[in-house]
């Protein structure tokens, strides 16, 4: 074999060696990458918890609201903005509780008195005990398409308020509250050992 032939063989061997090293390097890299990928993880997170902030008591007072009928209500309120291509819609569900009863701060000075062997009770008229009856923080966002402002939400609140008032503050409910008040007062007086009593209502 001549000198050129020997050189060719040496070069071919070198090539094979280089290729082998390259292949091994690639395999090691791929293996290493796979191993790292297996033990690694990545995720995007958005924290949806609120921050810790203080709760402040703005007022405290002694009250005497005697509730005889409790009306829990839910109202579905929606609003639509007509658009060129599509209509935007906002639907929310509001929750509220209307309390019907008597305010003990409105009773007359001698609203309960003894007359002979009987007890006479004169109760003030049944009324809505608290005008703030919607628990707005419980509101459920049901449908929202398009963009809406806080003023739109405020307006929905007022509509839900009016709806609840119409639905719950009815003559029938006031009558039921009145009947229950008479029943409950009678029960209490009996529990205190009073058999003879008369309950009347102030107009």
């Amino acid at each position, binding site marked *: 074999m001549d000198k050129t032939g020997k050189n060719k063989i040496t070069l071919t061997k070198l090539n094979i060696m280089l290729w082998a090293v390259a292949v091994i390097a690639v395999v090691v890299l791929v293996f290493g990458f796979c191993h790292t990928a297996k033990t*690694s993880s990545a995720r995007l997170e958005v924290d949806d918890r609120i921050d810790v902030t203080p709760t402040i008591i703005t007022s405290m007072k002694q009250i005497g609201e005697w509730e005889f009928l409790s009306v829990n209500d839910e109202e579905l309120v929606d609003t639509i903005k007509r658009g060129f291509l599509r209509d935007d819609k906002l639907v*929310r569900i509001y929750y509220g509780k209307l309390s019907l009863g008597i305010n003990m701060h409105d009773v007359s000075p001698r609203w309960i008195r003894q007359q002979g062997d009987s007890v006479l009770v004169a109760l003030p008229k049944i009324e809505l005990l608290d005008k703030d009856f919607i628990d707005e923080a419980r509101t459920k966002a049901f449908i929202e398409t398009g963009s809406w402002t806080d003023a739109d*939400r405020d307006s929905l609140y007022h509509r839900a308020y009016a709806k609840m008032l119409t639905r719950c503050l009815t003559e029938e409910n006031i009558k039921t509250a009145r009947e229950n008040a008479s029943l409950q007062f009678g029960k209490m007086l009996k529990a205190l050992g009073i058999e003879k009593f008369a309950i009347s209502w102030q107009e």
Partner: protein
Amino acid sequence: MMNRLYFNFLIVFAALAVAGCSRKQTPRQQPESVDTIPMLVMQVQKCSRLYTAEYKMHKIITHDDEIRMKGKFLNQDYDVALPMGSRKIAIPIDATVKAYIDLSSFSEKNVRRVGDKIDVTLPDPRIEMTSSRINHGEIRKYVALTRQNFSDKEMAGYEQQGRQAIINDIPQTGIMEMAKESAARVMVPFFVGMGFNEKDITISFRKDFSDNEIKKMIVTASDAERK
């Protein structure tokens, strides 16, 4: 040779297309209809609750959300805030919390009479958040250009968390003591009117309550719905 290859390819493609088109039309299953509007309920309940104490509470709910990338690389935990812009919101909320005595279960068992004296043990007070109001005019938001505005659902979620945070703070407010004192103030004239002397009337409660016990006395929305 190439032409033949193209010809074969076309045949295979056409066959696949025909197969795709002539796929037997299975009757499309009608999606089961689901009522997505939650049942709206008006629940009327007869009761006899004497509300004796009222607290007005205020809270500013704040939320600062930034997108963070969290994970593990080379066995090392990492947590990096991505520079995609942040969003901030502050929602002022006012709530009314009231304490009441449930007198519907009041009976002769609650009354003890010895001569002219009367000793009345009232049922344990209960606490309830009766209303809450979001001050929409005072809501402040910051939304980076790269982020979407806060959705109604997200805001409602923060408000519900804020509501729960107020409820969790109730035991520290001292409303229970005021409720008891006020109940006595309302009930004493009742017994005086019935002919008892004020000095002969004793209004008491079963016991003093710890913060944990007070927590259990808070009537939540789900309790009210269950009733």
